C-alpha cells in the first residue's frame, strides 16, 4: 500500500509538471486553479484529517492571504514575491493564532461554529468597512515579481510556481505527519484525553497545527490573488469554507492525497456537469448532477475517493472490507 501511495503521488506530480506541454492556455489556467485549491485543501486536511479539528472558517485565512497581497502591494509598481509572500502568509498565520487561541477552548460542533464566527467577522470587516475596499472587490494592479527572472504574470511561470508550492506543501505535510509532531497530532485526533494522560499538553500542539494550517491557507490565498489579480469579500464567505471541506471529505479524510484528489475531483465534477456538450440545456441545472454525484459518493465510497482502490481490491478478492482497523477507540 505504501509503495502504491508513493507511486500514485509521484505520478500525480509528474503528470501535473508535464501537463502544460500538452495543454492549451485554458488547461494551464484550470490546473493552476485546482492546484491552488489543493494547497488550500491540504491546509484544512492538516486540521480535519490529521488533528481532528473541524474548522469551518478556513476561507478567512485564505481570504486574508489574498487581501494581504492586494493591500500590501504598492499602487504604482510590482512588489517582490520575497516580501509579499511571507507577509501574506504571516498575516494569515497571525489571524489563525488569534482565532486558534480563543476557539481551541471549545470542542466538536462548538469549535466548528466558533471558527465560522471568526471567519464571518473577517468577512464583514472586509465587506462593510472601507478597509477592505468595498463589496465589489479590489484589483491587484501589478503582479509581484520573483527576482528578475520569474514574472508571475505569465501563466506558465505561475503554473510552475504554484506546482512548486503544492509540492513543497505536500512534502512538508508528509514529513510533518511522520514526525513526532505529526504523530502527536494523530494521537490527539483519536483520543485527546489519552494524550493528556500520557503527558502531552495538547493545547499548544493544536494551536501550532492551527497556525500552520492558517499559514498554508494564506499561501493558497496569496497564489489565488496573484493568479486572478482580483480579490473579493466572497473569498472569505462560508461557502468557500464549506466547499473546501467538501473537497477533503470527497477525497478521503486522513490522507494527504485525499485533499489532492478531492480538489481535482470537485473541480472536474463541476466542469463536467456544467458542460453543455454533454448535458445540453440541462447544463444550467448542473447543481443537480453535482449534488447527486456527491450523494452517490457518500453511499458508495465510505472512505472517500482514495479508498476506492482498496474497495475495488476487496471486491475483486471477494471479501468484504475489513472493518477491524478503524479509529474507534473501543
Amino acid at each position, binding site marked *: 500500500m505504501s509503495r502504491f501511495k508513493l507511486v500514485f503521488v509521484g505520478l500525480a506530480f509528474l503528470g501535473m509538471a508535464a501537463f502544460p506541454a500538452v495543454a492549451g492556455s485554458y488547461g494551464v489556467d484550470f490546473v493552476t486553479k485546482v492546484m491552488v485549491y489543493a494547497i488550500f485543501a491540504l491546509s484544512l486536511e492538516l486540521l480535519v484529517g490529521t488533528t481532528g479539528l473541524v474548522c469551518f472558517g478556513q476561507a478567512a485565512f485564505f481570504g486574508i492571504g489574498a487581501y494581504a497581497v492586494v493591500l500590501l502591494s504598492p499602487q504604482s509598481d510590482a512588489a517582490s514575491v520575497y516580501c509579499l509572500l511571507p507577509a501574506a502568509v504571516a498575516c494569515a498565520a497571525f489571524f489563525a493564532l488569534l482565532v486558534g487561541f480563543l476557539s481551541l477552548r471549545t470542542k466538536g460542533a462548538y469549535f466548528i461554529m466558533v471558527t465560522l464566527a471568526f471567519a464571518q467577522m473577517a468577512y464583514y470587516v472586509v465587506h462593510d468597512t472601507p478597509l477592505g475596499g468595498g463589496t465589489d472587490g479590489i484589483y491587484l494592479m501589478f503582479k509581484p515579481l520573483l527576482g528578475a527572472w520569474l514574472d508571475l504574470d505569465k501563466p506558465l511561470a505561475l503554473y510552475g510556481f504554484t506546482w512548486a508550492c503544492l509540492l513543497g506543501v505536500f512534502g*512538508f505535510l508528509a*514529513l*510533518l505527519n*511522520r*514526525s*513526532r*509532531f*505529526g*504523530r*502527536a497530532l*494523530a*494521537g490527539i485526533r*483519536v*483520543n485527546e*484525553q*489519552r494524550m*493528556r*494522560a*500520557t*503527558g*502531552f*499538553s*495538547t493545547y499548544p*500542539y493544536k494551536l*501550532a497545527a492551527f497556525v500552520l494550517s492558517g499559514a498554508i491557507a494564506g499561501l493558497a490565498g496569496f497564489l489565488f490573488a496573484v493568479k486572478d489579480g482580483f480579490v473579493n469579500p466572497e473569498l472569505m464567505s462560508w461557502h468557500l469554507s464549506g466547499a473546501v471541506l467538501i473537497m477533503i471529505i470527497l477525497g478521503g479524510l486522513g490522507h494527504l492525497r485525499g485533499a489532492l484528489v478531492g480538489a481535482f475531483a470537485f473541480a472536474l465534477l463541476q466542469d463536467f456537469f456544467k458542460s453543455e456538450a454533454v448535458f445540453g440545456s440541462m447544463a444550467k441545472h448542473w447543481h443537480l448532477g453535482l449534488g447527486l454525484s456527491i450523494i452517490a459518493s457518500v453511499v458508495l465510497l465510505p472512505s472517500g475517493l482514495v479508498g476506492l482502490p482498496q474497495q475495488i481490491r476487496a471486491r475483486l478478492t471477494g471479501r468484504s472490507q475489513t472493518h*477491524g*482497523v*478503524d*479509529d*474507534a*477507540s*473501543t
Partner: protein
Amino acid sequence: MLRGHNITRRWGGLVALNQVSLALRQGSVHAVIGTNGAGKSTLINILSGEIAPSEGTVELLGQDVTRWTQPRRARAGLGRSYQRNTIYASFSVLENCRLAAQAMHQKPWHWWRSAAHCVISTAIAAEVAERVGLSALLTRPAGLLSHGQKRQLEIAMCLATQPQVLLLDEPLAGMGAEETERMLTLLDALKPHHAILLVEHDMDAVFRIADEVTVMVNGAVIATNTPAAVRLNPLVQAAYLGEH
C-alpha cells in the same frame, strides 16, 4: 509517593467524593474497591488531574500538584491506564508504545525527522512491549489485537512514559483466566519499583496481589487496611463483601 488528602468533589448538589485520603508507597499495591458509583473513577480522575477536586490536595513525590495540569503530572511520573481501551486502533503496537514514550521526548519542532527514527522512544517502546509480552506482535495494527492483548498494550503505553506511580483503572476487566494470570504476574514484577493504585472488581485478584485495600461506599472511605483485616471488617462485610 502519591498522597491524596481530604479530597472532596461535588457535582452540583451531589457529593461524589467525600473527604477521601489515601497514600501510595513504592513497592506496594494499593487497591480501591467499591460498588459501581462509589466514586472510584472520580478518585482516579482527580489523582491523575483529569478533573479538579472541589476541596483537598494531591501530592506527588513530595510536591503539591493539586493545581498542576494532567500532562504536567504525567511528565512528573504519574501514569494511568483507562477502563476502556484507549489505544489507537490504526497504529501498530510499536507505534502506540512509541507515541506514549515520545511524551517524555516530545521535541515537536523536529518536523522533518520521522518519529520512527527517534532512538530513545523506539527503544523504550520495544522494551515495554516486551515486558507486557507483546514483542511478537510489534507490527500488528492495534485494532486487530484480542481484547486481552489490548489491555496489555494499554498497560504497556502506561509504562512507556516511565512513571513512578501507576493508576490502573480495572486492568483485568473482561479478561480470561490465563490473561488475568499473566497480568498479575506483570503487576508483581512492577511492584518493587512503582507505587501502584489498582481499581478492580475482581476480588480474588485484589486480595491476592494487594498490600493495602481501601473500601469506598457512596464516595466515602469506610476502611483502609491490609487485605486480611479488611476482609474481617464488619462494616465492609455489611456494605460490600456481604453480597458474596
